[in-house]
């Protein structure tokens, strides 16, 4: 029996005239990863901030492990870990001191906090830099320390707000691996990202946000299937063969698009339609020399749903704590 570890309903939050969240709702099953996907300003950070009790919603319901974020904030804070968009660690403390401080403030006894700090430094590959001041760390190291800080008190629920924004590919993949391990050991993760690839790689469920509203929900595969089109790319030996095949496919009810010796056929019925395409050609047109099947990416999904692609380089427009 799985109950939702995170539950959100009709959540609203405005900053002055700007509506950051406009009736958002979703649930995250215990032990799963939910990806909150959307461009800057779509309300991702606001949603995570409300769930982690850093921010208060104007209206609506939100609970974590059954605790109401509005009325049981202290209980919520005991079961969550939070790593924000900006590595929120103290530059004038060492990595070890940072983790030990967070441990102490998370109510771990001093000795336990110290051991836990060593353990996390080790598992995040920061042991060689453990006793250096964080101001000497690279961006990737800071970010890893920030995520480590979210794990100090072994929270069953983890909020990661754009955890890999600005990371190099190596650090990014390493962090993905860490997240997978945490989920493997039962942690529930709510992850915000504007990288579609990241949601695809990590999230079991994806909620797409746009201007503070949920525009779609589903598994990455469902979302991709919903807007459909798998694209088959058939390569032919020469243009003449391709023209011939184009005519045959058009006559068989497909909508082929030819470019020199290549034909592009899209299918709304998934990649299984490839058999029909090839069967139509069989015996009446030259066989294709190559066949490629392109599944839609979440980028395609996003484009179809919101009319624009994400642009990771924009400055974060979401209001932060204290900016309101």
């Amino acid at each position, binding site marked *: 029996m799985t*109950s939702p*570890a995170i539950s959100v309903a009709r959540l609203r939050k405005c900053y002055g005239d700007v509506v950051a969240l406009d009736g958002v709702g979703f649930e995250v099953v*215990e032990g799963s990863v939910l990806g909150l996907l959307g461009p800057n300003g779509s309300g991702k950070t606001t949603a995570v*901030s409300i769930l*982690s*009790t*850093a*921010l*208060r919603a104007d209206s609506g319901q939100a609970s974590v*492990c*059954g605790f109401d974020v509005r009325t049981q904030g*202290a209980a919520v*804070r*005991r*079961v*969550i870990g*939070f790593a*924000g*968009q*900006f*590595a*929120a*660690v*103290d*530059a*004038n*403390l060492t990595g070890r*001191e940072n983790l030990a*401080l*967070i441990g*102490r*403030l*998370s*109510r*771990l*006894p001093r000795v*336990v906090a110290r051991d836990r700090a060593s353990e996390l430094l080790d598992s995040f590959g920061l042991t060689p830099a453990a006793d250096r*001041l964080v101001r000497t760390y690279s961006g990737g190291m800071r970010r890893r320390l920030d995520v480590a*800080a979210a794990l100090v*008190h*072994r*929270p*069953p*629920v983890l*909020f990661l707000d754009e955890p890999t924004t600005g990371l190099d590919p190596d650090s990014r993949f390493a962090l993905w691996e860490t997240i997978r391990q945490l989920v493997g050991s*039962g942690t529930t993760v709510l992850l915000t990202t504007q990288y579609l690839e990241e949601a695809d790689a990590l999230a079991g469920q994806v909620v797409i946000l746009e201007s503070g509203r949920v525009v779609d929900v589903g598994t990455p595969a469902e979302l991709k299937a919903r807007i459909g089109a798998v694209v088959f790319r058939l390569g032919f030996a020469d243009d003449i063969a391709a023209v011939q095949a184009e005519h045959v496919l058009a006559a068989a009810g497909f909508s082929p698009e030819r470019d020199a010796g290549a034909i592009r056929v899209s299918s709304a019925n998934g990649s299984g339609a490839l058999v029909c395409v090839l069967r139509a050609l069989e015996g009446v047109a030259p066989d294709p020399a190559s066949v490629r099947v392109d599944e839609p990416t979440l980028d395609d999904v996003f484009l179809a749903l919101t009319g624009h692609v994400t642009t990771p380089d924009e400055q974060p427009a979401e209001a*932060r*704590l*204290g*900016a*309101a």
Partner: protein
Amino acid sequence: MSTTIAPVTQPSRVVMAAADTIDVAGRNLRNLWRTPQAMVFATVQPVIFVLLFRFAFGGAIHVPGVSYVNYLMPGIFAQAVTFGAIGTAVGLSADLKSGLLTRFRTLPMARIAVLGGRTLADLARNVVVVTVMTGVGFAVGFRVHHGAAGLLAALGLVTVFAYALSWSFVALGLRVSDPEAAQAAGVPVMFLLVFTSDAFVPLRSMPGWLQVIGAHQPVTALVNAARSLTLGGPARSDVIASLAWTTGMLLVFAALAARTYRHMGR
């Protein structure tokens, strides 16, 4: 639900809040220690002010009936802790900007400890500053007339005043979005408080309208009380006036700061 809740030690809330406050204060003191410009600002600058006013300006300022260094020292204690309070606002707004305060807000710690730890660290810093300045003061000719008890009482008044003042700069630091803005907002307040008081020159030397302002503000009250306690003369009413200002400031600004912090996420 099969979640394992983090181990929680459960002493009383007050004890936990105190422990959190001490942890945060320790972090702030480490930060101060490791930021050379902040250390210089906190310790070297007050000493330079003592020497400047004692030797560079002091010769031009005549206060009837008292040597200028003895007149100066209580004033310069007040000046040093008032200028130092800027660091409270700047440090807090830096934590706000870096996202560290957001992290603290998501931890199962006592929320008040973020502010309590900041002001406790500033209290410790001020004790050091005032001690160093006293030493320098004695080295350049400062003498007291009410003995060690009078001096300690004066330093105590300065320190509690500084504590109350740092709460007002907490309230300020929480309301501005970055350290530069905190500095820009805090410096004029600090200059007005110090230089419209009688910290360096007697109020009588100021124009009438300014005397009115100078006579009714907390730095003047503090300096008068500290002077009575070190120069001699009846101190009681001055001390009461200063403690009244300090208590009032502490109550108003601590409440305001706590309220601002509580409402920050709304």
